[in-house]
């Protein structure tokens, strides 16, 4: 009887520990080194995107829109300066020729890219993402869910 109780307790502890580890697991990653200590907002082309297959970076695609309260590129540039993280930007016409266009259909958008895959992105069609386009802190909090802001 005593042995059974001990076995049950050990079993429960193992299960609870496993669940705790899974829940609190940190999936964040570091961007590629060159994007830290770097507050540049660099324009790239779709050809250059092909050369970043093994990199981890933030990509901003922009488009013309005729009426906008706060230009979102100002928000992302401010973030880049404040947190010293480099962001790559690509105009929408170029962006449409990349493989990322299969997932991200509307500009403006910011994508977190890891080894040529989109980890997360801001959706221009989604109310839940509006604040991230218009507020540096909201944008930063969103990024922090996926990447480390310091190295």
């Amino acid at each position: 009887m005593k042995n059974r109780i001990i076995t049950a307790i050990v079993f429960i502890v193992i299960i609870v520990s496993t669940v705790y580890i899974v829940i609190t697991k940190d999936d964040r990653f570091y961007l590629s080194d060159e994007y830290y200590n770097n507050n540049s907002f660099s324009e790239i082309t779709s050809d250059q995107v092909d050369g970043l297959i093994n990199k981890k970076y933030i990509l901003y695609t922009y488009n013309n829109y005729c009426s906008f309260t706060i230009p979102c590129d100002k928000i992302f540039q401010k973030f880049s300066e404040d947190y010293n993280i480099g962001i790559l930007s690509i105009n929408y016409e170029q962006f449409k020729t990349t493989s990322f266009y299969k997932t991200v259909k509307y500009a403006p958008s910011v994508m977190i890219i890891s080894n040529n895959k989109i980890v997360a992105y801001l959706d221009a069609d989604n109310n839940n993402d509006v604040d991230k386009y218009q507020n540096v802190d909201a944008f930063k909090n969103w990024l922090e869910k996926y990447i480390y802001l310091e190295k």
Partner: protein
Amino acid sequence: MKEKIVTIVMAVIFVCMGLFFGYTLLNKSDGLCELPVSEVTGGERGMLGIDKNINESNIDQYLAREDSVYRDMRMLKDVANYEAIGGDSYLSGYVKGFEVIPYPYLAEVKGLPEAVGKAYSGKTLFKQNEDGTYTANYEESLSILEYLFPKDKNIFLMCGGGGYAGMTKNLLVALGWNKDRIYNVGGYWNYEGNNKVEIKRTVNGKDVYDFWKVNYHNIDFDNLTRVQ
């Protein structure tokens, strides 16, 4: 007995067929499907007033309707430098069936990103007041608008990114148009459908624009009567 039953059954069948065909003929529609409700989408696109239910992704399903008009609100060559923010100052293409009426000729363009510089600042049919209302600059202003945007039709608006289309909808609604019959379809730059009419082509490395393909409505301000 058996013959009577067969006769009655045949009679019932014929009556039912007659009723069916009669109903179909009397209620014959012109084949137009009902339009979904005009509803603004979310996010940044929603801030431009782009419609959730009819936009660049599915406008092809709603083209060439007799109960509707289709208006592209861009200039053939915009004064604003939209290339500075990844756009296109030229009307390099449009969706088949859309007729072009530059929004900048209807009312002042406001709220452009700094990078594009100044917008068109010439004559306009209306002036926007600080309270969001509009005042006609010409005696013919409203009748021109009523001709270009018939109130008894569904109105589909489009431009490059959805902004001019949104401004047009705001103008029309402020002047009394039914907002539920106006759809901001969004921008040609997001359009991937099957009804593109290409205007821009490259000849010997130089861009050439076939504006003669565009169904364009010009407004000759010199022949209008200025409101005193």
